[in-house]
């Protein structure tokens, strides 16, 4: 007895070993096979023959692979894709297993996006608080006692720290406004939020690293000063 499911699984495996490994590509080709087999079967062809004919019509894996390779990404596209990946958005891999009842499967539900953004921002928030409450005053003391001038960039940090609540409020107000007034926001919500989180994380990490470097530079001077 011919088992279509097994035949399809075997065909997928063949494609994969032939170098056509992308799940979405195989999903699409599989959907095609199923449609074609179904149509032939309705016209009176046995499933086994229909499947063999469909696979033959789909073509050799080498030919398919080289056709797909022709539309691979170049240069700037590749950079953009890498950035999206860093931000945590797998491209060309629409979220299939989310909520199938949702009218557009490719748009992440609002609460998912916001929860994820909040979770990924949490470590940065902790580091930022630590840096502002502990590291920054400490650095100030060190710099004063060694007579080392605080580099200008650190003035920015104290300005941001003094007004963190204002900036948070502004950010939330902006998001609320976008949700409320702009219908197209839905489409850009995920990429904008994730990019912002990525940039904030990177910035906090950079500030933290710079503070540590300054402390390391100043510490030996302090020991000279006390001597």
């Amino acid at each position, binding site marked *: 007895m011919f088992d279509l499911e097994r035949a399809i699984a075997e065909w997928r495996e063949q494609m994969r070993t032939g170098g056509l490994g992308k799940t*979405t*590509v195989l*999903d*699409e*080709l599989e*959907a*095609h096979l*199923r*449609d*074609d087999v179904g149509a032939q079967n309705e016209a009176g062809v046995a499933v086994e023959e229909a499947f063999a004919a*469909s696979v033959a*019509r*789909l*073509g050799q894996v080498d*030919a*398919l692979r080289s*056709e*797909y390779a*022709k*539309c691979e*990404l170049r240069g700037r*596209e590749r950079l953009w894709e890498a950035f999206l990946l860093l931000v945590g958005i797998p491209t060309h891999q*629409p979220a*299939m297993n989310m909520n*199938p009842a949702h009218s*557009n*499967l*490719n748009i992440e539900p609002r609460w998912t996006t916001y929860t994820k953004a909040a979770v990924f921002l949490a470590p940065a928030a902790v580091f930022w608080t630590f840096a502002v409450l502990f590291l920054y005053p400490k650095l100030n003391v060190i710099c004063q006692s060694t007579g080392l001038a605080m580099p200008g960039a650190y003035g920015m940090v104290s300005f941001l720290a003094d007004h963190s609540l204002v900036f948070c409020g502004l950010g939330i107000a902006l998001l609320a406004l976008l949700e409320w007034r702009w219908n197209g926001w839905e489409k850009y919500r995920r990429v904008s939020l994730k990019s912002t989180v990525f940039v904030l994380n990177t910035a906090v990490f950079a500030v933290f690293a710079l503070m540590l470097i300054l402390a390391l530079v100043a510490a030996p001077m302090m020991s000279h000063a006390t001597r």
Partner: protein
Amino acid sequence: MIRKELVAASAEPLILSLLARGESYGYAIIQEIKTRSGNRMGWTDGMLYPVLHRLERKGQIKSRWAEAENGRKRKYYFLKKDGKKALEEHDEHWAMVHAALSGLRKERYV
């Protein structure tokens, strides 16, 4: 059978024209092209998909996965603004080729 090179050259304008009428998915696109060409466009079915892929990369079409009536998932494609522009350009070029050919053909019989 229509020559392979001509089939390849006409793939993009054919797909764009089909999608200009509304969104569709790979299998339906292939069937439609086969019927319209009286089965004389020698497409291997699989060749359509890389072309769709390429058009999407170029930003002329977009895709989304959705569930069909029978519960199976399908990848639907639809035209974007750039695709419409590209289609207009294709139309213009094909019309030019057609005009040149038919003009010459008429002269042959004078």
